[in-house]
Each structure stands twice: as structure tokens, then as C-alpha cells.
């Protein structure tokens, strides 16, 4: 018995698409692209606002929100889930600010206090009311992207489209539209909140608006891909793209490209290792990040090494008298 399956390049490339599994594979890839893109686009603005970890916080604190909605309504209806998530997201952001402002606890520490507490409340709710809450903690962490194909589906132009894919596509459209409509406001409040305020642009509205969009993306991604992938995808496309470009519109476009690459690469990795596709997508994201870091034409490691060598050569070459 071997720990890691033998790596065969040909089978690494083809395995997900043969043996009758290709239909399931396609939906995993599509769902992955939708989730990664939605997370990546919102994540760019989080990273620019130096709030990368707020995504982490909100994704954890949504748990009690969703659990309470379950308890109260006893249903898994999307509308209620979204309402619960938005409420939980806003409470999280508000609580972080409240603790930070009222106690002089630093913002990152306030964030640590808030989301761990809310997550714990969620865990308690789910374990105490286990009979009433149809929420699997394992599913919350890892998601069940591998089983999307077996979900309920809707026939659309002759194709059976799984329901979660439709939902996520809708969420992605909404998020993209909102980010495009408020791009100007998000840009100026992220870069120079002082100027934004002086212009009469409501900085706190932009902040809470972004947090609501973030909660929306997280709650839609949650069920199918789990918390791990969501947190990673909020950050990875953005930081990787920023190594390649220095203009926000291009960084946003590159994020979409990386979102797709993570999804496809992750599926292949998952098929080879026979592991969770969500986890594999994150690892694939990190591998791509390392690759870009090495070869980036702007601040890539290889470029820096070459420059260093050249500089050393120039320093040594002129002979001293």
C-alpha cells in the first residue's frame, strides 16, 4: 500500500474526464469557477482595505446566523438563509467596530474575539439542537462540491443544470453588477477615505455595503464548497494577481482567470489524490501563487536574483586603483 498514489502525467490530465465521470467533473469545475470568481472579486476589495481576515471572520460567524434561521423556520429556504447570513455578517462587523471603539482593543484583536465567539455560539446551537438543525459541521468545513451533480437540477436549454450552480451563478451576477455599479465609490473609499468623506461619499455605507456583499457571497458558496475554500478564495486570486499587475481593473480581470485555473487544477489534483476537491483547489491556488511569485515580471524572485547577480557583477568589475 502506498501513501501517495503514483503520479502519471497522462492519467493526471485525463482521469477526471473519462470513466463516465466527466459530467460530474464539468459541474465541479463550473461551480468552482463561479465560487472562486465571486469570492475573488469581492476579496480584492478586502485585501485593498487591509481587511483580508474579515472574510475569515464573517465566514465563521455566519454559522450562528444560519443555525438560528434553521431553528426558527425549520426550513432550508434560500431566502431565509440569505437573510440570516446578512444579519450575522452585519452583526459581526458592527460588533468588531463596537469592541474596537469602546474598549481601545486593537481592531485585529477585536476581530479575533468576535468571530470565535460567534462561531462557538453556532457550534453550541447546532450540537444542542442537533435534532432540529439539519446542518452537518463537516459539510460546513469541507463542503460537498463533489456531489453537486447529484443535487436537484433544473432543465435549461436541454441541459440538466444542478440547482446550486444556478444559485451561485445568480449570486455571481448580482455581485459583479454591484461591484461595477459602485466601483467608483469602492475605489475612492479604499484608497483615501479622507478624500471620500470630504467629497460627501458615505464611507461607512461603502463599508457596510461591501460587508453585505461579502456575506452574500459567503452564504451562497458555503453549502457547496465549505468554509475553507471560501476563505482561501477571498484572498488568493487577489494577492496572486497583484504580483502580476499594478492596476486594479487588470487585477480584477486576472482574478477571474486564476479563479478558473484553481478550479480546473484543483479537480485534477483531487482526482489524482482522491481527496476533497475544495481542499485541492486551495492547494492548487497556493502552488500557482508560488509559481507566479517566482516568475512575475515585476517583483518575481527570479527577476530579483538576476538583478542581484548583475548588481554584484557591476560592483566587482571596476578594478580599484
Amino acid at each position: 500500500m502506498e501513501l501517495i498514489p503514483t503520479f502519471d502525467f497522462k492519467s493526471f490530465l485525463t482521469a477526471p474526464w473519462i470513466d463516465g465521470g466527466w459530467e460530474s467533473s464539468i459541474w465541479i469545475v463550473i461551480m468552482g469557477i463561479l465560487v472562486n470568481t465571486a469570492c475573488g472579486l469581492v476579496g480584492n476589495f478586502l485585501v485593498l482595505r487591509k481587511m483580508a481576515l474579515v472574510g475569515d471572520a464573517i465566514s465563521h460567524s455566519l454559522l450562528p446566523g444560519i443555525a438560528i434561521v434553521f431553528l426558527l423556520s425549520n426550513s432550508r429556504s434560500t431566502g431565509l438563509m440569505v437573510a440570516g447570513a446578512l444579519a450575522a455578517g452585519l452583526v459581526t462587523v458592527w460588533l468588531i467596530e463596537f469592541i474596537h471603539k469602546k474598549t481601545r482593543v486593537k481592531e485585529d484583536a477585536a476581530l479575533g474575539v468576535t468571530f470565535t465567539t460567534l462561531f462557538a455560539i453556532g457550534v453550541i446551537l447546532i450540537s444542542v439542537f442537533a435534532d432540529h438543525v439539519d446542518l452537518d459541521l463537516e459539510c460546513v468545513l469541507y463542503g460537498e462540491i463533489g456531489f453537486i451533480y447529484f443535487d436537484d437540477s433544473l432543465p435549461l436549454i436541454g441541459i440538466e443544470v444542478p440547482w446550486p450552480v444556478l444559485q451561485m451563478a445568480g449570486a455571481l451576477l448580482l455581485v459583479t453588477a454591484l461591484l461595477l455599479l459602485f466601483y467608483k465609490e469602492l475605489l475612492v473609499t479604499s484608497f483615501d477615505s479622507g478624500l471620500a468623506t470630504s467629497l460627501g461619499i458615505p464611507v461607512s455605507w461603502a463599508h457596510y455595503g461591501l460587508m453585505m456583499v461579502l456575506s452574500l457571497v459567503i452564504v451562497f458558496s458555503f453549502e457547496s464548497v465549505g468554509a475553507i475554500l471560501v476563505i482561501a478564495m477571498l484572498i488568493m486570486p487577489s494577492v496572486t494577481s497583484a504580483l502580476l499587475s499594478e492596476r486594479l481593473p487588470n487585477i480584477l480581470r486576472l482574478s477571474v482567470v486564476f479563479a478558473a485555473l484553481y478550479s480546473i487544477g484543483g479537480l485534477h489534483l483531487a482526482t489524482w489524490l482522491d481527496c476533497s476537491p475544495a481542499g485541492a483547489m486551495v492547494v492548487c491556488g497556493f502552488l500557482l501563487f508560488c509559481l507566479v511569485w517566482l516568475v512575475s515580471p515585476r517583483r518575481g524572485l527570479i527577476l530579483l536574483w538576476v538583478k542581484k547577480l548583475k548588481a554584484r557583477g557591476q560592483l566587482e568589475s571596476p578594478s580599484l586603483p
Partner: protein
Amino acid sequence: MSPETPLPLEIHDLTVAYHKKPVLYGIDLEVPAGNLIGILGPNGAGKSTLIKSIMGLVPSSSGWVKIFGKPYKKNAKRVGYVPQRESVDWDFPVNVMDVVLMGRFGHLGLFRRPGRKDKDIAMACLEKVNMAPYAQRQISNLSGGQQQRVFLARALAQESDLYFLDEPFSGVDAATESAIIKILKELRERGKTLIVVHHDLTTAKEYFDMLLLLNMRKVDFGPTEDVYTYEKLQKTYGGRLTILSEVVDTRRKRSSDLPIEK
């Protein structure tokens, strides 16, 4: 004898506190139009805080502010702002043009992107500060002086009537400093009102028509020749003789006529 046109800036009893500790006490101010005004005072005197609280960046605990006779929010379009350079992240992924265009955002409605006209205005403003060739340059590749010129161009693009500038001369090269003061004087000639937070006593007299001496309270406000006196400066800077002795040193170098008495 109320003036026919409302004053650019009128402040009454403005008080600001951080964590319940007051930093500005009961400031009253009536600023006449068409002046280049310097705010002078030691570190921690609340110079930046004053302009920030006028624009609503810092909440005030009492008092009111009127911009051309109306509350700030009603007349935000008529106010231009040059924040301290250090207040933003210069690694932010935008280029020079993107930053200057932000000055147009106040004139655009919700959902509207800057158009051709805004880009032309932004470009003209970059030309005024001699930064047009840098329009497509990523902002992290700018020197301190160039960053300050970009911020000034952005404020020009706001096409305002009242400008607040927070330490625009700090850490810039001499060429940039004289370029900036030339532009500020041009704006004044066109009837604009400019309020500048300034930390250099030696240049204050030649740059400004009026001075506000500030040290948590208003020490004095008036035409430079009335306000720039030894007693009033000492009252503002208190016992901080180091600052005054620095002035003496600089005076020797510059041989300007500072009101230092034996």
C-alpha cells in the same frame, strides 16, 4: 452689517475630543474669501484635526461649521482637499491618472463613471503641476514631491472654491515647494480661498496673507503682519524654545526678517 455673499468658512464654538480628551476647544473663525491662509502651531496643537473636523472626517463634540453659508454636506462640492501624503497607501494598484480622476468623483452622480470631459480636466490639472508625462505611471514609483504634485492636481480637478491642504510642503523638494506655492497664489488671484496647515515658521510670513495661530485654542487669527509677532508666536508655541531657536538658525541661513527679539 452681514456680508452680501456668505463667507467661505464660518466656524462657531467648535470643540473636538478624542476618547473624551479635548484636542480643540471652542474655535470661532470667520474666513474672508480670496485669501491664502496658514494654520500655525506646535505638534499636537490640533491643526490637522481642525480641518478634518470641518470636513466631517473627525466628529466634533460641539459647535457648527458653515461652508458658503450652508452645512458642509450641502456644499461639499465647493471644497477641495489635499490630505497628508502619509495618509494613503502608495502601493495601491492605481496610476497617477486614476488618482487625479478621483477629484472628479464629487461632480459625478451615483453610478456614473468619469468621462471624456473629466479625463481632459484631469490631464489639464496634471499639466499645471508638471506631471502630465507621468499620467500612466504607477503611483508607487513616485518621489515624495511627485506624490504631493499628484495630490495637488487631484484637488485642482475638484474645481472648488475653498481648499484645505494638510502639510503640503512636508518632505517635498524645493522645486515642488515653489511650484505648489505658485499654484496656490494663482488660485487666490482667481478668488479662491485656501487654508493650509503649515509647520515651517520661517516660510509662513512670505507665503500667507493671513495666519491662524492655534494651540488647542485659537491664539489669534488675522492678517499676517498683525499676527506674526514675537509675543503671539511665543504664546502659541509656549516654552518650546527649541522651535524658536531653530527659527533663529534658519534665519541666519535665509536672512529673512523674522520677528525675533533679543
